[in-house]
């Protein structure tokens, strides 16, 4: 569709394009500022942090040394943290996506007793902020001796109510009832229909929930902070925050931590950013379904 006047040739279009792109560029600068700052700071020595301008590089390019320091500090606990985060986020992400997909599929395509009630409860749960549950969860888990283990972080993260909501809407939209009926007539069992026929249609939604729960788990701070006490199980969020607190409060020894914290921050955000960019095809389709229904 190239409405006359909106084509690339007309002067008003070109003027508008410049103006609007400029607005976005300004917003983009604001968005990029902290990320750029982290990148720049991670390349500096501790001294340079204080003496050189915050938003530009110093002559002393120390990125790789800093990164090396990050991984070697405290007997290399950071690599452990990074590994933990990857494991927690991946397991929780895939698990949450799978369970949400199955639940959403059931709610969208089946009629059964209690369906409305169940959906209302899940919807209500979306409204409950996770933070309210963390402390009671901690107390419950300590009663069964589950605290301070990876499961303490992974298992609660497998519950992602917004994912169920999203997948229900998506399954409603993306899967024609006739497809399921055709499968039944062909003699396939319910689960076989799900895995062989409908799952591939649900993939964009699945990928969306996967990314959203992956990011939610990766970024989670409060839950691991409360349920974990040994540094070896920390995710990077908790670990880095600890370094940050030490750096800020501490004096002589603490000062050296600044570059460490900043370099560590850089390392911990790079994987997720890359994942985002690579997976962008998927989450756009999934979010769209929700948009239509609203």
């Amino acid at each position: 569709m190239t409405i006359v006047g909106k084509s690339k040739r007309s002067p008003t279009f070109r003027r508008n394009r410049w103006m609007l792109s400029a607005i976005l560029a300004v917003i983009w600068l604001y968005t990029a500022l902290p990320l750029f700052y982290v990148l720049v700071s991670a390349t500096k020595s501790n001294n340079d942090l204080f003496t050189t301008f915050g938003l530009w590089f110093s002559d002393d390019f120390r990125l790789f040394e800093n990164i090396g320091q990050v991984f070697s500090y405290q007997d290399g606990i950071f690599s452990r943290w990074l590994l933990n985060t990857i494991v927690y986020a991946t397991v929780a992400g895939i698990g949450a996506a799978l369970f949400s997909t199955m639940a959403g599929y059931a709610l969208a395509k089946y009629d059964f007793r209690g369906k409305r009630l169940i959906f209302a409860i899940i919807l209500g749960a979306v409204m409950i902020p996770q933070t309210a549950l963390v402390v009671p969860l901690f107390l419950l888990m300590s009663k069964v001796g589950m605290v301070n283990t990876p499961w303490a972080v992974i298992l609660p993260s497998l519950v992602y109510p917004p994912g169920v909501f999203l997948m229900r809407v998506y399954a409603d939209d993306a899967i024609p009832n006739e497809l399921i009926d055709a499968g039944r007539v062909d003699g396939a069992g319910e689960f076989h229909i799900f895995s062989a026929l409908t799952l591939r249609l649900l993939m964009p939604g699945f990928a969306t929930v996967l990314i959203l729960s992956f990011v939610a788990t990766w970024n989670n701070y409060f839950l691991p902070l409360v349920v974990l006490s040994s540094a070896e199980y920390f995710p990077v969020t908790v670990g880095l925050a600890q370094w940050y607190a030490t750096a800020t409060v501490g004096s002589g020894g603490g000062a050296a931590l600044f570059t460490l914290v900043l370099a560590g921050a850089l390392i911990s955000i790079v994987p997720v950013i890359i994942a985002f960019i690579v997976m962008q095809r998927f989450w756009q389709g999934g979010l769209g379904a929700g948009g239509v229904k609203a």
Partner: protein
Amino acid sequence: MAVIELRNIRKSFGAIDIIGGLDLHIEDGEFVVFVGPSGSGKSTLLRLVAGLEEATSGQILIDGEDVTELGPADRSLSMVFQSYALYPHKTVRANMAFGLEVARTPKAEIERRVQAAAASLRLEPYLNRKPKELSGGQRQRVAIGRAIVRDPVAFLFDEPLSNLDAALRAEMRIEIAKLHQRLSATMIYVTHDQVEAMTLADKIVVLKDGEIQQIGSPIDLYEKPTNLFVAQFLGSPKMNVFDAEAAAGGLRIAGSGHLDLASVPADVAKLGVRPENIGITAAGQGNLDGKVDVVERLGSDTYAYVALADGALVTARMAGNVRLAVGETVSLQFDRNEVHLFDGAGKAIAL
């Protein structure tokens, strides 16, 4: 109202021509129908007139003024969309008033025009409803009302009846015909349905692959098609087409049949006969023999589908209820005055 003219209009995407170098003249107050199969370019042509598509080259003139570079808003045209394109969040009244509000028309005038349009389309009871509360036919009328209130120089219709069921389609067809009578406005109407084309048009433009096949009044196109495509596109059931070659005293048809003709053109390749010009007689007594395959009785007419030796079906239409048995060998009798001859390239040969 307006005279619309298209001069050498071309619309291409890269190397592909959707519309190739087309000329068209539409008189003031004419009801012109663009008709053709999918992909013929008819909608594109309409949208070029509307300004919703930009021409790659050529000119569009409305009342002598070159509007090629103007946007849709500046061309004073109104369009009725296939999907109605009503604003879902606005009431019927607000939908119709929107264009006038954008043009800063005084409130009293807007109210007057909306009332008048609503009255003429019997929409008054629905003025305060939202589109989702209306039926398909009602939404269609709102779309038409929205077009009317702006008092455009011409109306454009893009397959407006495609989304309606058969009964409603017939009703709305009459509605549109009456609208044209009432307003005497220039109207351009796009459809793939040849019944709509035949019944509504003052002038039909038949399009295929972005090129005009023929322009003329419905009856002209029906009785004197200039090529095979137009001949088979208009008329339901389709015209029957047979291989034909010159033979002694006339034509040899489909290998085994014969038709006497006074003069036979040298380049003849096909013979076309419409179903209503074919009668059924006893075997051996007509122009072409075959076996009755299927008989459809509609009460008012009888359609006989006669299979030839090679399996091809010929459709014959007869009035009333004709007695025919499936499997019966019969002969097809062609009305010699109503046959059409075509050359190897599909062009009509004048008789």
